[in-house]
Every structure is written in C-alpha cells, then in structure tokens.
C-alpha cells in the first residue's frame, strides 16, 4: 500500500495533516483543546493544589492541634504555626491546643501534599482551588488560618472517598473515647468508693494515642 516515489514521504505527511485539519471539524479527538474559562474540566478526586485546614461545624472546631508535624515535614518550609496559649476541648473531649497562627505561604508551597500525608489529626488536607493568581506577589499569597480553614462539608465535596474514610475513623475513635469515658466514669464511680485518681489520666492519654497511630497508618496507606 506504500507508494515509493521521490517525495512520497512528504506527500504522506500532507495527507496526515489534511486528515487532522478536516477531522478537527467532526472528531473531538482531533480538537482536544478545552477552552478554559468557559469550560472547566471536572477535577479528579485526587487532585491537590494547596493545603487547607478542616474544621467541624465552625472555625472553633478546627481539627488542628498545632502539633507542628507538618511544619517540620514540609520540604519547602512554607508553614508557620504558633500554638495558642489556652487549650480547648477537641471532639474526643480531650483538651488540646489550637493554632493561634497558622500561615501557609502558597508562593513557596509546591503542592506536594506531604503535610496532609503526615498529619495525625486529619486536619490538613489538599485543596482543589487553582485560580490563585493575585496582583501582589507577597501579602495575598500568605494564607492565614481564617482563609485556610474550610468546613468538613467542603472536604466531603472535593475528596469524598478520603472524607468518608476519615469520618468513619474519627467516629470510631470518638465511640471508643466515649466508651472509655463511660468506663472511666464507671471507674470513677467505683473509685468514689475507693479513690485512685491517677488511673483516669493514664487511660485518657492512652485512648488519644491509639487514635493518632491509627490515623498515621491510614494517611500512609491512602
């Protein structure tokens, strides 16, 4: 089927470009451009751009405990965390610090997602916003806690699989903590007869410890 005369290769090239030119009018395979601002592609679930912080209900329910693991692990060192001075009770009833300052310089951030991967509290996750350009290249690109905090519902919307998995893990941890608390209360009631206050603290920290380990494993596995 191959004709070999002088210039046959060039002629075949012409045929190929002509096919592509004509094909662009009826074959979507041959006109692959997506005209961006009008048409946006649906993002796959895994897409990651810059990090955000997940909260339950409202900003006061920020999951972050200012443990600074992400700050340490961030390869680009773009996270800055300052612990609050007062502790608040978290969803397990355990009193924890929250960050007073949580800044991410997204001009430095390289969207690697390691912060989300190492976070033991399922607090920092990767966002999917991508229209991040600003006119000033300094101040507006440093995202503060208020801009970073987003609801769990938003997390569910952009990463449904991960969010459902996270929620189930957290629910389980919470149930365990409640059982523990109930057990503790029973123990306390028993201890009221025979008081021994040290046990309750040990039990409590134990429960937090297990949930953290479980979360680390999960983060690595997904």
């Amino acid at each position: 089927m191959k004709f070999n005369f002088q210039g046959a290769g060039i002629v075949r090239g012409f045929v190929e470009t002509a096919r592509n030119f004509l094909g662009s009018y009826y074959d979507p395979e041959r006109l692959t451009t997506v005209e961006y601002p009008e048409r946006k592609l649906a993002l796959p679930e895994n897409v990651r751009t810059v990090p955000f912080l997940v909260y339950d209900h409202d900003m006061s329910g920020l999951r972050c405990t200012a443990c600074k693991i992400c700050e340490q692990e961030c390869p680009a060192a773009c996270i800055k965390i300052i612990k609050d001075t007062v502790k608040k009770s978290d969803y397990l009833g355990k009193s924890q610090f929250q960050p007073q300052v949580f800044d991410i310089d997204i001009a430095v951030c390289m969207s690697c997602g390691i912060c989300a991967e190492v976070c033991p509290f399922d607090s920092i996750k990767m966002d999917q916003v991508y229209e991040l350009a600003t006119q000033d290249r300094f101040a507006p690109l440093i995202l503060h806690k208020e801009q970073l905090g987003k609801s769990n519902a938003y997390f569910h919307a952009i990463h449904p699989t991960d969010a459902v998995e996270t929620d189930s893990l957290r629910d389980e941890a919470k149930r365990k903590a409640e059982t523990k608390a109930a057990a503790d209360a029973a123990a306390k009631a028993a201890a009221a007869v025979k008081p021994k206050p040290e046990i309750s603290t040990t039990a409590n920290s134990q429960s937090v410890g297990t949930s953290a380990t479980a979360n680390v494993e999960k983060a690595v596995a997904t």
Partner: protein
Amino acid sequence: MSTLRKEISNGSFCGGIDVDSPLRHFSGATRTTNTNGFAHDLLEISMGPHHPSTHGVFRMDVIVDGEEIVQLKPVFGYLHRNHEKLAEKNSYLGIIPYTDRLDYICSMTNNWAYVLAVEKLSGFQATERAEYIRVIVSELTRLFNHACLVGFLLQDMGALGTPLMYAFREREKILDLFESLTGSRMMCNYMRFGGVRCDLPEGWLDEAKKVVSDYPGFIDQFEALITGNEILLARSQGVGVLSRELAISAGVTGPMLRASGVNYDIRKTDKYGIYSRFNFRVPLGDHGDVFDRYMIRVLEMRESLKILEQALNQIPAGPIIDPKAKNRGLRPKAGEVYSRIESPKGELGFHIISDGSASPYRLHIRPPSLINLTILEDMCLGQTIADAVIILGSVDIVLGEVDR
C-alpha cells in the same frame, strides 16, 4: 599582515561599527586561513541562554566558519537550584517532591530512582502490587517522554509545532491518568519507600488499558506524518554521528547509546524492580546519528507498549505499601548506596551517603541529561548551526536535570 593583526584585535565581524565603539567587544571574530591559503573569518555566536531551541536556559558558545561549527562550548548552570544541597537539610521523605523537579517531564522515574536507592539503603522491599504500579507509571512516562522528545526534535527542525502538538495530545491522556492517580499532572510525588503513596482509583486500570491500546495508532499517525519525510531524512541522516567507542568512553547512556549500537539497557542488565518478568526487546541503531536517535525512541515506545500490556494484565491485588517500611522520620543506618534505573533519558542514578541521621549526609544525582550533553561538541564539529540545534534536540535534555 599588520592590517590583518589589527582587524583581529579590533575583533569586529563586519561593518557598521565604529572601531572606537564601546560595543566592539561584543563581536568576537578571529581570522584564520584555510588549506588553500584563503583568509576567512570565524564568528563567535553565543547561542542561549535565551534561545528558542536550547530547551531552556542552556548556552552554546559556538565558533563558526560561515555556518560550519569549528568549536562549541556547552555552558550550563543557569537553572541550578541546589537540589543536592537541599537534600542534606530535608528528611528522606521530603526529598521525594524535589526529585519530581529534576527532570520535570518524567517525575515518576525520578521518584523511582530515589526511592529505590533509599530502599536499598534501609532494606525495604516494595510490595508486589506496588512493583507493578511502578512499572506501569514508569513505562507510561517513557512513552510520553519519547513522544515529546521527537516532537521537540522536529520543532527544532522547523516543523512549526505540528508533530509536537500531536505528541502533546497523547501526552495529555497520560497526564490525565497521572492526575487521577496522584493528584498532580507532572509533579507526581507518588512513590514511597516500600511502595507507592496511594492505590489506583476505581476504573484507572481500564482507562490506562484504553490509552495503551490507542497509543499504537498515534505512533502510526506520527510516523506517517514525518518518518518517511525526505526533508527529515536529509536533515537527520549522517548528522551528529556519535561513534560507539566515543559513546561508551564518554559514559553516554539511554537511547543515545543504543542508537550508537551498544546493547545496554539497565532494565535488562540490572533487572531492577520486576523487569525480568516482562518480555520486551531493546532496539539498537547502527549509525548513531540524529535519525537513529529519533527512530530508537519511536521503536522504544512500541516496546514500552508491550511491557505495559503485560503489566496491566498481570497486576495482582494486594497492599500497595510495605507496612514495615517507615516513611516519616526515616533514619537509615549509616552507609552508602548507589542505585540506578533506566530513565527515559538514560541511566539515572542516586548516590546517597547516610550518617544515620534524618537527612542524608550527601546525596548525589547522576543525571543522564548532563552526561549525555558533555559530548555535544564532538557531535557538532563540522556541522552547521542548524545541525547543532537538532543534535541538541536529539540528545534529549531537560535543564532541570542538567543543572539540578
């Protein structure tokens, strides 16, 4: 003779310039005599770092006689970003995203080379499924790297972007796969010590199979467009010949070496990962010129497709990461390791020295682009400027990897 001397010291290449002009030192021209005794001028051209076809910020200091190159000095370092030094401050895990940015076209193979070195250092073993995933993503990377390379090569040859756009069209499909798998199109940051970061999403394998089964159609189309083209043949055959001996002694690896006829593919020689399980061949060229380098890449794409078909069909279920492998806070015992893989551009090696701390004591990268670039002058001597551009294009460099 005295006027001749004077002109040399003036060093201007043609008229229009005052000898007292402060600009005259910009034009470096020297005068030599050829075998017949005719005096003629040599012209020094600094091609780059801002030049349309130096593939980034690369500079070639070229001295030409007419359009024939008599000397060429590659100058690099304009894109130096300190990756090796940064690694000494980062955790072992935190280095992985930096490896994405070495050869920013093929982040997957970079990941693999680094992860393999750390696994060798700390004795981890990737799980079965993870090994398959690694092979699949690496061969996909090889596919689109070679497609882009031949596209860029033809762009350098002046084909106004058509082959490049066709190559990019296919590359987009693979990048879409990577995006749904890893969350990022180019900076995948996907592999981890003992496995990979996340499992294949639902339906990913089917999409990958579809891409792989459509790919031969693209190669056929591409070859119909350009392979038989008489202009391509005339431009590339016999141009930039790299002899077998020079290639070996200069440490050239990858498709460039194989185009010179040396049977050396680390997938075959080292059998790293699970490459020994796959049935594929290594294409070899005989001439070592630009056309052979072009054809070897086209043929390698077809061989990669074979590997992909086998891997996609054989991939087992199971865990994607060794639960014993520690990623965060890894402190491998003190030691030294060199590990290498066949990246699409050649032998990509990581040399890590650990002192037992959380960061490497020293990390050195053996970038195939850099080593392959060192013999640029040998290939370009006696050729024209237009040839130098396509010879550079056929080397397949990514400046991110050359300068690190």
